[in-house]
């Protein structure tokens, strides 16, 4: 709608968009502001500015939620999940992109069924099965569960990237005597890397933020993720909101910084698949 609008329309539009932006940012601003205040200051008013930035909240939150350990756990879990999803997902997507429509239909239905099935449907047997096998508190086992959950959408997304590669390239490489593996690794991978990056970002985001599975399978203090540890911290000392907001800042900071730098990829990845282009 890049047509000239009247001045008034534009002003009203910006005002409304501004109100919406304020609504989105207000709770985040509260988190930032109150993470720097002492508890009495917060009780006085959640909107007041801190007299002096009280950085101690961050120290307390870091120690209270054992972030040295739990950030490490979250990071390991994230990288393992990304590696698993990328290695299995890109191969599957490659095969699916170059196969006939018939099998694609069945796979789509399966992928759809897994995205619509509630986690609870497989959570209980999985939990008791894992418990029997001694896999509770095992970060690697959980990354496999994540891989199973995040794969469907990753495959769907990656497939579109593989489809965009012209078939002639593959044919040319085959004529030159390349093996299937060489075609995949030398021809396709360099061309679909934006897709791989997008998928890594989304899977990383979901893994970092995931709660239900992490809280069920990783209960031990040594294997908790940052989010679960934050959840337990806020259950323990639910009165010290300064510490809690500082902890919230710490857990969200890596994600938010990454999001701001790579927002286009994030938005493309999360909205991708929901829109038919």
């Amino acid at each position, binding site marked *: 709608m890049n047509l000239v609008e009247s001045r008034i329309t534009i002003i009203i539009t910006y005002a409304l968009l501004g109100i919406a932006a304020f609504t989105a940012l207000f709770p985040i601003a509260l988190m930032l502001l109150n993470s720097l205040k002492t508890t009495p200051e917060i009780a006085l008013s*959640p*909107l007041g500015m801190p007299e002096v930035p009280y950085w101690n909240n961050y120290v307390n939150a870091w120690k209270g939620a054992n972030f040295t350990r739990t950030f490490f756990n979250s990071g390991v879990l994230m990288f393992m999940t990304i590696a698993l999803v990328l290695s299995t997902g890109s191969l599957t997507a490659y095969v699916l992109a170059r196969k006939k429509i018939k099998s694609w239909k069945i796979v789509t239905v399966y992928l759809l069924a897994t995205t619509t099935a509630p986690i609870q449907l497989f959570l209980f047997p999985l939990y008791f099965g894992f418990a029997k096998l001694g896999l509770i508190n095992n970060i690697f086992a959980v990354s496999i569960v994540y891989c199973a959950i995040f794969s469907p959408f990753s495959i769907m997304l990656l497939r579109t990237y593989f489809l965009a590669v012209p078939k002639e390239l593959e044919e040319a490489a085959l004529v030159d005597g390349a093996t299937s593996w060489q075609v995949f690794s030398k021809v396709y991978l360099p061309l679909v890397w934006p897709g791989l990056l997008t998928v890594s970002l989304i899977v990383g985001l979901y893994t970092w933020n995931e709660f239900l599975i992490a809280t069920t399978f990783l209960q031990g203090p040594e294997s908790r993720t940052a989010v679960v540890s934050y*959840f337990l911290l806020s259950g323990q000392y639910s009165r010290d909101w300064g510490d809690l907001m500082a902890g919230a800042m710490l857990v969200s900071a890596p994600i938010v910084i990454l999001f701001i730098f790579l927002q286009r990829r994030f938005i493309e990845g999360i909205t991708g698949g929901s829109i038919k282009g």
Partner: protein
Amino acid sequence: MSIIFLPALLTVVLAFYRWDGISDPTFIGFGNFEKLWGDRIFWKALKNNIIWTALFLTFPIAIGLIAASLLMLVRRGRTFFQVVYFLPMIIATVITARIWQGMIYNPQSGIVAMLNRYGYDVRDPLSQTSTALYGVAVADLWHWWGFMAVIFFAAMRQVSQEQIESARIEGANYFQLMRWVMIPAIMPTIALMMVMTVIWSFLVFDFIFIMTQGGPAFTSEVLSTMAYRKAFYELGVGYAAATALVISLFGLTAAFFYIRLQNREEAE
């Protein structure tokens, strides 16, 4: 595949057993389902899921459509607004929940406390039986509508420029343009989002589990929190499996409509 498919099958089997997770399961046929039928909390949870679905079918979709259409009107700042609207979506649920609980709803130190001091009689919605569900829904809504806005905006940008321009030349104003051009053009996306909303609404777990645990007095209980509580706190794994099956039933019905929708589109 085996991570999801096998346990899912097991859940179906378990739904017909009584099992505490430790001793041997006993087959009880439809016993779990009969028990569900007579369970007051089950009906309460189901009703809450339906309320939740209704809330999320209307508010985020309406706000998302309005925001997206406003973004279409402006030239500068599109990326900025999109990023801002999307920001709540990437923050972990636990954190969003704690911000709302501590900074807004908290009657000692939140915005609610501040309003009380100015003489407005507002209470912490999470502590009231009549408002707990809505209190959680508002926090979830806050983090959710931006996602809808970004999706609808992306869809609207694909509407052909010619169609818009010809409507403009014929003198259509903003509302007419929305009603007769934009909304019909992005209807497939809206329909898809509505189907997904139904599915997601029956799966909702995190926000409720973290903010109220289904309380006070089960007034904000939904099927997924009920199943979780039964399985892990009350050792009724078979009963929980039966509840999970009921959730899946709603999800599958919605998925069925989704596939029909897609087939119809492909036929066109």
